[in-house]
């Protein structure tokens, strides 16, 4: 089959004060109808910029400085790179021939226009479709992407959609004009595995139906294994390796690719460090649990986000919390620290001096003391670091507030902490935006451990990272746990991560804990049907064992 899009030696640069920064360097690949090209690579390797270059929508001041982007239009080839980025010709291609799903669905949609208007716009622009017809088509599209009640959903606004729904709305928007090429930029990063599986299914189905070519950007090797025909590995702006999915997974040539695949397989097992301690016999039996949560309930208006949850946690233990997006994991974690006031229940925390405090009812001073021992790593590393404070200031803040010592002492301690999380201490003067996602996450961890806590609630502490980084981070946590005798509540939707470091697992579904148990037991012999569904939806990082199509679906009785 002839390729529909040929990218030849594409180079995109961002002029900066110190010279031109080459974000995409001499990248070539082709897209074929009905086939999926997966683009992988570390964060910041130029995946998104490559995708955007194709449509000439690179953010200012970026520009394409070399190469050709040849689009096949009914036999004639158009060089998209040579078109005026504001001109008619490229506008005709955008949305109609080539559609794009953007990385962040929340901010990529306008908050003040209804979903229907935004989806219908492409139809109006390219086909001049009338209002009524357009509405019909949009409802049809929403139905296709399995949005419930499309007739009413069409008139809703972005913020009324959940993360998964937004993602699907973006897909509907991209598919509106039946494009021949779909560029999907990490469309499932923020989703739990079950929702992710739904979306992958949908894209696959449409691809089969329309013979659409797909360029799929992701850092999840499991997803790659599930859907890719071909894989493009990028590193620092250029192509490291390009080949069929089997070759990449089973016969990687490039060291970077090898490392990438290596970390994937590593995550398939339990942490080696932990295997060691697991084997060691339990020496001391703790007198009482470190944390004893009973009947915790939190409602948002009508919604019971956390519903009668009970958990216990021993010293030095890691408790995993899994569950689909919106099941109340974060809310539960936040209740533990009284970021939210729980509506009911007790949260007994045993402090270092042995006294037991009910966090749910603790007074101001008590709470302050508890919060020094119980810390949090936030789900969103960007949002939890004040962009206007340097890394040093951020890490020093808890120390300063705890009255740690003189500025000099604090500074030394910060340097120590930085080293501990594997960052050069000189970076104290950097602003968070000058760090990569993984580094930011480590700053969050450094801040959490600064005042020697006994319990860390880590909320999706690795979700934003690509696999290699993720395994590094997890190792770091295990290391810290060993060094400091920490306990963790580890919230995640990634089962491999849970398996990698957790002692026990609690599965949440719609605010309730539906199952708890030893990690092994839950993963291998799950009892609750929801847990089974969750497990079956995990993409398996082996192109030869594609399995999410065979997943089981959980249909709750009440639904």
């Amino acid at each position, binding site marked *: 089959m002839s390729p529909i899009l040929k990218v030849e030696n594409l180079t995109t640069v961002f002029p900066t004060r*110190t010279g031109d920064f080459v974000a995409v360097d001499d990248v070539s690949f082709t897209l074929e109808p009905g086939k999926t090209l997966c683009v992988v690579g570390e964060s910041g390797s130029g995946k998104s910029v490559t995708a955007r270059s194709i449509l000439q929508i690179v953010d200012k001041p970026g520009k394409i400085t070399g190469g050709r982007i040849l689009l096949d239009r009914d036999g004639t080839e158009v060089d998209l790179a040579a078109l005026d980025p504001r001109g008619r010709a490229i506008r005709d291609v955008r949305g109609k021939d080539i559609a794009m799903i953007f990385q962040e669905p929340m901010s990529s949609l306008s908050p003040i226009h209804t979903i229907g208007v935004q989806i219908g716009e492409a139809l109006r622009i390219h086909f001049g479709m009338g209002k009524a017809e357009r509405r019909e088509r949009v409802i049809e599209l929403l139905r296709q992407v399995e949005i419930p009640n499309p007739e009413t959903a069409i008139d809703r606004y972005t913020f009324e959609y959940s993360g998964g729904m937004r993602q699907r709305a973006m897909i509907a928007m991209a598919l509106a004009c039946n494009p021949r090429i779909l560029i999907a930029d990490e469309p499932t990063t923020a989703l739990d595995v079950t929702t992710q599986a739904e979306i992958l299914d949908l894209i696959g189905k449409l691809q089969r139906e329309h013979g659409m070519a797909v360029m799929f950007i992701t850092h999840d090797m499991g997803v790659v294994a599930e859907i890719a025909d071909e894989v493009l590995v990028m590193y620092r702006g250029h192509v490291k390796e390009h080949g069929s999915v089997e070759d990449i997974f089973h016969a990687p040539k490039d060291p970077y690719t090898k490392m990438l695949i290596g970390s994937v397989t590593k995550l398939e097992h339990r942490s080696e460090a932990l295997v060691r301690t697991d084997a060691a016999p339990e020496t001391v039996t703790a007198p009482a649990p470190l944390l004893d949560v009973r009947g915790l309930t939190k409602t948002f208006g009508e919604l019971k986000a956390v519903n009668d949850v009970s958990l216990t946690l021993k010293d030095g233990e890691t408790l995993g919390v899994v569950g689909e997006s919106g099941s109340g994991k974060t809310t539960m974690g936040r209740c533990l620290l009284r970021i939210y006031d729980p509506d009911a229940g007790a949260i007994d925390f045993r402090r270092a001096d042995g006294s037991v405090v009910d966090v749910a009812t603790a007074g101001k001073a008590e709470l302050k003391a508890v919060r020094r021992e119980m810390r949090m790593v*936030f789900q969103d590393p960007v949002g939890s*670091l004040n*962009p*206007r404070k340097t890394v040093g200031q951020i890490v020093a803040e808890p120390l300063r507030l705890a009255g740690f010592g003189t500025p000099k002492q604090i500074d030394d301690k910060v340097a120590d902490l930085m080293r501990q999380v594997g960052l050069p201490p000189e970076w104290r003067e950097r602003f968070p935006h000058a760090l990569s996602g993984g580094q930011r996450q480590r700053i969050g961890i450094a*801040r959490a451990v600064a005042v020697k806590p006994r319990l860390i609630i880590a909320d999706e502490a690795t979700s934003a990272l690509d696999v290699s980084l993720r395994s590094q981070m997890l190792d770091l946590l295990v290391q810290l746990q060993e060094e400091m005798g920490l306990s963790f509540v580890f919230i995640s939707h990634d089962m491999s991560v849970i398996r990698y470091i957790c002692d026990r697992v609690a599965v949440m579904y719609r605010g309730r804990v539906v199952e708890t148990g030893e990690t092994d037991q839950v993963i291998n012999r799950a009892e609750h049907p929801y847990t089974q569904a969750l497990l079956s939806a995990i993409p398996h990082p082996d192109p030869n064992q594609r399995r999410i199509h065979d997943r089981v679906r959980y249909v709750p009785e009440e639904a």
Partner: protein
Amino acid sequence: MTKTYKEPEPDFTYDPAIETTDPAVSQETAGHEANLAAAGQWKLFWLKFRKHKLAVVSLAVVLVLYLIAAFAEFVAPFDPNQTSATYTYAPPQRLQLFHEGQFMPHVDGMKMTLNTDSMRREFERDPANPIPVGFFVKTQPYELMGFIPMETKLFGPLEPGPRSPMYIFGADRLGRDIFSRTVYGARISLSIGLVGVALSLVLGVLIGGISGFFGGKVDTVIQRVIEFLRSIPTIPLWMGLAAAIPLSWPPLRVYFMITIIVSLIGWTGLAREVRGKFLSLRNEDFVIAARLDGMSEMGIIVRHLVPSFLSHIIAVLTLSIPVMILSETALSFLGIGLQPPAISWGVLLQEAQNIRAVSQAPWLLFTPATAIVIAVLSLNFLGDGLRDAADPYGKV
């Protein structure tokens, strides 16, 4: 020409135990950029600020203006309240460097005739009788800033006296030197007005911050108070309050009081914007993180939230400075502003608010207006520069 650079490709011998180079370091922060990104907060700030040419120039202008204000006695060739019956409404004389081919800084002389029909003095240039002008000329002893005895002025006629008038920006209805008056006017306009601005800034940020940060009942009450304050027309309020101020107060104190009153009302606009911003920021993770670190609510407002919308504050500030300078003019118009002999740019403008000045002595209007425009523009561009420099996302 821009140079192109590429990172040397590292070898991939991956060893998770050795964590010295992090592959996730984006290129942006590598190489030259790395130095920049690692530069201290203030250094970075300055580096970015310096890039904004106009802001640097503006900074210089602002500094000069403040120097002029501080050393008004030295810069102004004459006492701003010194009247001259001979030279009422004298037009500006051009400062010239050469006279008949010879270097001799001077202004042309003036011939005055009294026209009793039109009841005015009429002036004619008299280039034949130049009035030599010098720099660092000796004058009557005076006290710089009220305590340093001096006898030198920056510039002035070499032989000061009624026979050698030097009005480079013209004279007003009492024959006072507009240039000197403008120089002196800078004092009040660039100080008290800014106090008012600062006061409304502090109030606006604090009250708006409290309203937005705590929300709930506090918010509702503060919002009602703001709505209420906003809905009272300012002029009646000024007049009422001004009439209630004791007569025995010296003019400067009255004016200061009124400035404070004005800013006591002026904070509302900023407060509402701050509140809106806080409402959206107060549940940001970094705020919660600070709270978990044990920071007090006030600490969070001051250290985390306020810096987050510094750019907005700067924009509001640069817009409110002219408003403050001018509200004084409006007060003067109503007869409740600064009283003589105090001088400000607002007073000068107010004195030009008559048909005679507009039609026959436009310099009375242009001089203070130009001074205000220059001050306001440079403060604005300075603000622009500061904002851009304070923005961590801003391009370097």
